[in-house]
Structure formats: structure tokens, C-alpha cells
């Protein structure tokens, strides 16, 4: 254990020291090879130009190498693997894809993912917006926001334990120590094993993600609401608009862009949801989702990399429209100056 901590500390020193040494050293080297000071006029200008060509690449180089190895190469390789068998050796064409769409578990995952996509982003955005609007009006709003924001710091696994405790089931007649069953029993209902009720269990798992992500939506939307020019609302008040009209016709249209950002961010998160399903049900009782199914195939029976890669590609395809939209949006902004 001591050696482990020591090696971590050494890594930090070596890593940071190495980075400093690289950036400083490479920069210095460039100045020495192509000196711009102390040489004759034209040579100095030539060298300055050469420096200008090379230096940016010294700065972005390490990042580009890491990005290539850890993200760009894997994306290409995953696509390649999805057309190959379990060991990535024999070419199988679209066999993995046709397997996927015929597989009961896969179709169940797609169905559940669609269900998650339909419920979670909408619920988080809506609840986040409601809380943002309400907390702006009261003196203890900041404290309230902090508390609602807090689950965002909790890991999905931690949150799963927290909610599993709420959903805990004890046999009929025993003392219920799970909050939900205790409430149900208090109102005369009979306790249920919530996470094993097919179809409905999806919603009990979604509740966890909504609990975590509402704070995120709230913070972003709250900032957007603050950015609305006061005059637009004052003008509406003078024109005799009621609070609901002000909210729907004046405020919402002005934060439409932010709502889209919150919605897409949570959408991407939902597509990748893994930890919650793994820890709560591991896909049992028809609660499987794509990310957990993929993890399953990565290791099931020694691992089927072809099928695993295929499922990853399908998640990727779902993210693609958002990716394209983001890039176009960014290009439009940078085109401005």
C-alpha cells in the first residue's frame, strides 16, 4: 500500500515534471535551431516564420497524440471490429448487426433505452426549470438549490445504494425498512419488490438518474433565466400579461437555446447509462439497456468483441446527430470573428 501511494506521488511528479520539461525544452530547442535574435535580417525573418510554423504543433502535439490513441483510433477500430467475429479475426459483414436486431435481449434494451430517452431528459429539464423559477423567488433559494444540486456529486453506484435502500422489500407482515414500501403500507397497500416488476422497474431506475440530473438542469436554466433582460418582462407586465403568459410566452422563448443544450446533454448521458442498471438489476427483469448489454458481451463467455463493438456503434449512431449539431453550432460561432 505504501509503495502504491509512493508510486502515485512519483507519477504526479514525473508526469508534471515531464510535461514541464517537454514544453519548456521543446520550445527552447526551437529557439536554438532557428534563432530569431542575433542573426542577420533576412535569416531572422525566415527563422521567425519557421518558428511560427512549428511552435503551434509543439503545443498541441501531446494532446493530439493522446486523443488519437485514446479516442480517434478506438472509434475507427470499434467500427472495424463490429464487422468481425468474436475475436476480431474473421470478417462477418453485417452478421453482428443482423444478430442484434433479431436478439430478444437487444430489442428489449433498445425499447428500454427509448423509454429512458423519452422520460429522463424531459423530466430533468421540466423539474429543473420549475425549481429554478421557484427558488428565484424566495430568500432561502440558494440553500434549496444547493441541496437539490447535491446529488450531482454522488456517484451512480452510491446513488444506486441510496435508492436500493428506499426500494428495499421485506416480506408481507414484516416491518418494512424501505421508505417506499413503508409509505405504501401506511396507506394500506401491499409492499412490492419494485425493481423486479417488469416494465415498471425501468421507471424506478430512471428516478435515480432524474434525482441526480435535475440539479444540473436547474443550475444551467437558472443562469439562463437570470440572463433574460428585465425590460422584456416589465413590458409584458405593463401590457397586462398574467404570470403564466409571462412564463410561457416571454421567458421560455428566450431560454430556448439553453433548454436544448440541457436536453441534449442529458440525452447523451442517458444513452450511456450503465452503472445504475448494473448495480440495481444487472439487466434482469427486462430492465436491460444498451451500455450494460455491451459490457456484458465484452466479457460474457470470454468476451465477444464483435457483438460488443456492434452495440457500441449503435450507441454512437444515436449520438451522431447531436455531435453534428454541436460542430455546426461551434463553426457558426467561430465564423463570426
Amino acid at each position, binding site marked *: *500500500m505504501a509503495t*502504491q*501511494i509512493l508510486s*502515485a506521488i512519483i507519477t*504526479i511528479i514525473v*508526469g*508534471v515534471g515531464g*510535461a514541464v520539461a517537454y514544453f519548456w525544452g521543446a520550445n527552447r530547442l526551437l529557439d536554438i535551431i532557428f534563432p530569431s535574435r542575433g542573426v542577420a535580417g533576412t535569416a531572422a525573418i525566415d527563422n521567425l516564420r519557421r518558428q511560427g510554423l512549428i511552435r*503551434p504543433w509543439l*503545443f*498541441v502535439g501531446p*494532446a*493530439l497524440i*493522446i*486523443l488519437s490513441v*485514446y*479516442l*480517434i483510433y*478506438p472509434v475507427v477500430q*470499434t467500427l472495424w*471490429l463490429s464487422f468481425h467475429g468474436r475475436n476480431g479475426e474473421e470478417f462477418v459483414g453485417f452478421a453482428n448487426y443482423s444478430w442484434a436486431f433479431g436478439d430478444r435481449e437487444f430489442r428489449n434494451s433498445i425499447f428500454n433505452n427509448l423509454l429512458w430517452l423519452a422520460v429522463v431528459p424531459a423530466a430533468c429539464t421540466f423539474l429543473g426549470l420549475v*425549481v429554478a*423559477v*421557484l*427558488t428565484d*423567488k*424566495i430568500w432561502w433559494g440558494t440553500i*434549496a438549490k*444547493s441541496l*437539490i*444540486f*447535491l*446529488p450531482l456529486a*454522488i*456517484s451512480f*453506484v*452510491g446513488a444506486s*445504494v441510496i435508492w436500493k*435502500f428506499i426500494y*428495499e422489500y421485506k416480506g408481507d407482515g414484516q*416491518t*418494512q425498512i424501505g*421508505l417506499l414500501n413503508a409509505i405504501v403500507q401506511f396507506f394500506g397497500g401491499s409492499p412490492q419488490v419494485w425493481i423486479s416488476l417488469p416494465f415498471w422497474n425501468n421507471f424506478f431506475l430512471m428516478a435515480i438518474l432524474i434525482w441526480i440530473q435535475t440539479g444540473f438542469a436547474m443550475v444551467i436554466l437558472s*443562469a439562463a433565466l437570470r440572463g433574460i433582460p428585465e425590460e422584456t*418582462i416589465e413590458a409584458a407586465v405593463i401590457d397586462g400579461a398574467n404570470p403564466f403568459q409571462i412564463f410561457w410566452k416571454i421567458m421560455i422563448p428566450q431560454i430556448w437555446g439553453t433548454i436544448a*443544450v440541457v436536453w441534449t446533454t442529458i440525452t447523451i448521458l442517458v444513452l*450511456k447509462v*450503465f*452503472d445504475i442498471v448494473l*448495480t440495481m438489476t444487472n439487466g434482469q427483469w427486462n430492465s436491460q439497456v444498451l451500455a450494460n448489454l455491451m459490457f456484458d458481451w*465484452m466479457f460474457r463467455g470470454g468476451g465477444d468483441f464483435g457483438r460488443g*463493438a456492434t*452495440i*457500441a*456503434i449503435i450507441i*454512437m449512431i444515436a*449520438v451522431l446527430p447531436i*455531435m453534428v449539431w*454541436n*460542430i455546426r453550432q461551434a463553426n457558426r460561432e467561430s465564423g463570426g470573428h
Partner: protein
Amino acid sequence: MANATGKSFLGRFGVHIAVLIFVTIWTIPTLGILVSSLRDKDQIIASGWWNSFSSSSQTEAGRLPPASAQIEKDGKFVIEGNIFEDGPVRNISAFGLKSAAPTEFDAGSVADLGDGVTLQLNADGTFVMASPVALEGNRGQRVYFESSAPPRFTIENYETVLFSEGIGRSFINSLTVTVPATVIPIMIAAFAAYALAWMRFPGRALIIAVIIGLLVVPLQMALIPLLQLYNGVGLFFGVPSKTYLGIWLAHTGFGLPFAIYLLRSYMAGLPRELMESARIDGASDFEIFVKIVLPLSFPVLASFAIFQFLWVWNDLLVAIVFLGSGSDQLVLTGKLNALLGSRGGDWEILTTSAFITIIVPLIVFFSLQRYFVRGLLAGSVKGG
């Protein structure tokens, strides 16, 4: 806009109530495990945590001593003693002789067992069993009783979990993963972000577009090829394929697009005059970056560091793919997941472990919330 809606007293009252309901729903789940982790482990299953401040009552079963313990007294054969023997004393409210009717008799009353045999069980656990003829059998009479214990709070669960369940070790492992994986990307991203914000070179726009694209690439896309790569490297050099170095670099790679994106947008917003006047004074790009841009970028560097710290600390997927499951490499999230499988119903273990897992992020979050929110606002295109 604060006074646009809800002007009436009733409206304002309603707002307070609504927010209070939200806050309650959002806080209670976490409160539940915090309270439970501090309770006595027998009480956790005996009553809901929301009742933890009142005495918890439970139905227990006990056995009286066998016939050999009887003494003859006033012409009767009597067994006396205390049902709790050396266990903690509880308060008995009722007892019974059949599991179907465990509370048939009030504590202190005399129960008739037939054939003139009587049993009296008192609230403090003392009992007297009397019989006109000698009792027989080497198994004592079975007794059921309802007991209540005063609320008991303890830190025993924390001691158990930290030192004998392996959570303490996993805590160290999590720190080992998180700190380097937070520190390493910062410098690499900062240089790249500066170049992309303030240096002119061909391909710059393309690199920016690629980085924005990579922001949303699902982690799942990278897992299999990197696993193969690590296995290949491990085999080729004869080293283990699951190492801390491997996961530090993996987290660095996965964190870089967001780091570069966040830092670049911040640096691009710094005043142009600052850079230009420094350049006229003869400063090189390296000097401008180190002496001007880096110090000014402190808030955004802090934002990224918090993000990366929370993301790595809370990560489960990358840890279970790129690290082993031995006690020397299992991080907190992985350990908690393993405990859910092996200690499914032991809530004193699970709630305590969960609380230890979330305490570090909560401290980071509360002490540095300002930077965290700033980062969220600046970088909310990232998928998390």
C-alpha cells in the same frame, strides 16, 4: 423577474411549500443512508430509519434452560434466570409460547403451559417456570417475546467497514487513481488550448471541430480497442495489462476533449490587447502563455480540476475495465458494487460503505461549488 409571479400572500406561501417539498424529496434519500450508517445493526432491520429516534421493537425467540437447571423449592420444581443471560438488556412488552402468537401474554403475567406448569416472564427478562412434578427433557422451553430497545447510535459500522470489509483499502486505491488522473491532463490541455485559441496555423479549425466532436463520443466506443491494446502491450513487454498507469492515461484521454474545449473557450475570451502588447514588448508565445494566460486562467483550471476529480472518483466503468478486481486495485465504486452482490441485505455494511464513497465528492462539492457551477455553465455541451 422575481416579482413577476406569485404576488399574493397565498402565492408566495405556495412557492415556499413547493420548494420545501422538492428539497425534502431530494434530501431524504441521502439522509436515510447517513442515519442508517450510524445505527446499531440489529436496529436497522428492526425498524425504518425514520423511526430511529424512538425505541425499536422486534419479535425475538429464546429458549429457557433445560430441565437439568431446575431446583426443588416449596414442593415445586422451579427454573429461574434471565432470558437475556449475558446479552444486552431489552425491555419486554409481551411474550408467548407459540410462534403464531408471540405476544399472547403481557410481560409479568403468568402463562399456563398445561399440567399445572406455569411460566412468568418479566419486563426485564427474568423468568420463573414452575411445575408440580419434575421437568424432563434436555431441551428447554421455547419462548417468543416482543422486546424494545432504546435507540442506539454507534460508529461501529464505520470501524467494521473501513478495517475489515476492505473499504479503507479501496479508499486509498480511489485516491491513487483520482489524483494523478486529475493532475496529468491539466497541463497538456492548457498548452493545446492556448495554441488553439491564440496561435494561427493550418488545420486549427479542423482540430477544434474534431475536439468538439469527440466531446460527445460515448466512452463505450473506446473500451474494446483499448482493452485489446493494453492486453497487447502487456503481452509484448511481459508486464501486467491492468495497471494504475494504464488507467491514469485512459482517464487523461477521456478527459482531454472537455479540458481543451473548456480552457480554449475561456482563453479565447481573454482581452486581445493583453497578448498584443506583450508581443510588441518582445515576449514569445511561451512567455505569454506562462506569464499571462496561465495565471489569468486559474478559475477555469480549478473548474476543470473539480470536474475531472468528481468524474474519475465516481467512475465505475473505466475502473472495472482497466483495473483488476484484487484488493490492491479495486476502487470504491467497484468495491461498493461488489458489496451489493455479496452483502446484499446487510444494510449496515452497504449504507456505511456508500456514505464513505460519497463523502469525498460532497466535501469537494460544497467547498468548491462556485468553481463547479462555473465549469458547468461554460462546458454544458459535454455528455458527462
